[in-house]
């Protein structure tokens, strides 16, 4: 295949114009050749800004429940990965699935699905000590917060937040239930990220986490001043 025809194939697959056969052909090429895979990724990135132009819609109530039920239903064999070459991955999946079956509540179900999402964005060897699902006033899930014993906190946004101009998102927690909120850091790019802060006690169950909108650079008072995007109480994952 010439370079030009490969470029066209890649673009047509990314745009969604290619036939199923062409999509499969490109996937096979990309699986064999890292250079092709990199070119596909580059093409995806070219068009990705268009994903951000869609309306922001609240996640419907009950979505995580329905996903939970779908995941619990037996998969057909064709979709199940071969055991031989994916032993490690399967073990991880099973552990997640088992946890989830124990959990059974919607909030825990949501956290686990989201923990799965988060798993790819950071390579993490330790399970979080606590997980909090942050919800807005209407109860829509907007972010997942996971924190380790050293307060390394990863924040995964689940809805593109409408950050007012000249403002940033700031993440807070209350290590002492009766004390003042403490800043864990800013999300200046309005993207999911990992925050680190020293000098706080290890997070505990029912610890409050919240995200507020603050002036650029963070809250001037070092306490939350802006509207709350979402908040939630931490829970310890079932182990």
């Amino acid at each position, binding site marked *: 295949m010439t370079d030009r025809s490969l470029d066209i194939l890649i673009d047509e697959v990314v745009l969604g114009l290619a036939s199923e056969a062409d999509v499969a052909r490109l996937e096979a090429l990309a699986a064999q050749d890292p250079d092709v895979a990199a070119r596909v990724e580059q093409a995806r990135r070219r068009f990705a800004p268009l994903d951000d132009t869609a309306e922001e819609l609240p996640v419907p109530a009950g*979505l995580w429940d329905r996903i939970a039920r779908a995941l619990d239903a037996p998969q057909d064999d064709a979709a199940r990965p071969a055991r031989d070459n994916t032993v490690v991955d399967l073990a991880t999946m099973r552990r997640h699935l088992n946890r989830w079956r124990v959990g059974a509540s919607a909030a825990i179900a949501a956290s686990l699905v989201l923990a799965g999402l988060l798993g790819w964005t950071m390579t993490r060897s330790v399970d979080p000590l606590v997980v909090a699902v942050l919800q807005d006033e209407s109860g829509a899930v907007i972010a997942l917060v996971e924190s380790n014993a050293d307060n390394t906190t990863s924040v995964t946004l689940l809805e593109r937040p409408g950050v007012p101009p000249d403002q940033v998102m700031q993440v807070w927690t209350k290590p002492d239930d009766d004390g003042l909120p403490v800043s864990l850091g800013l999300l200046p790019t309005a993207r999911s990220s990992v925050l680190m802060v020293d000098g706080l006690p290890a997070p505990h169950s029912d610890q409050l986490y919240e995200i507020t909108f603050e002036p650029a650079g963070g809250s001037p008072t070092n306490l939350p001043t802006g509207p709350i995007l979402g908040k939630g109480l931490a829970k310890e994952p079932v182990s």
Partner: protein
Amino acid sequence: MLGVARRILRRTDLAEEALQEALVLVWRKAHQFDESRGNARGWLYTILRNRCLTMLRNEDREVPVAPEDLDTPPDDVMLETAFDRLGHASDLRRCLERLDGESRRAILATYVLGYSHGEIAGRLDAPLGSVKSRVRRGLMKLRECLS
């Protein structure tokens, strides 16, 4: 993510179904994700878009055409909105602006609304072959401009 699905499927209920199915797929395929080959966000959106396109093009599914059943504005309004919302500093916007209007709308319609070549040809009342080559020329120009 729901907004991306609703632009393609035009109905909130179908979009929610697509999002749910995509997230289940994501969960099941998580072991296939290879960080070295791209970011997780792009991977998520790719799975979601593919799910939507499959739903859209699967003839067994009822996809409504009656305007009163749609939860979205008319197609040309959605395209203009998408284009307007691209940041003014965005390279994609700058390069799309350099294309002629028909090619720009055709390329935007495929990505944003999930149009096929046939649907573009129908809208433009143009032969399928010339639509395909028009889109390809547009894509090559975009690629040159963006690289």
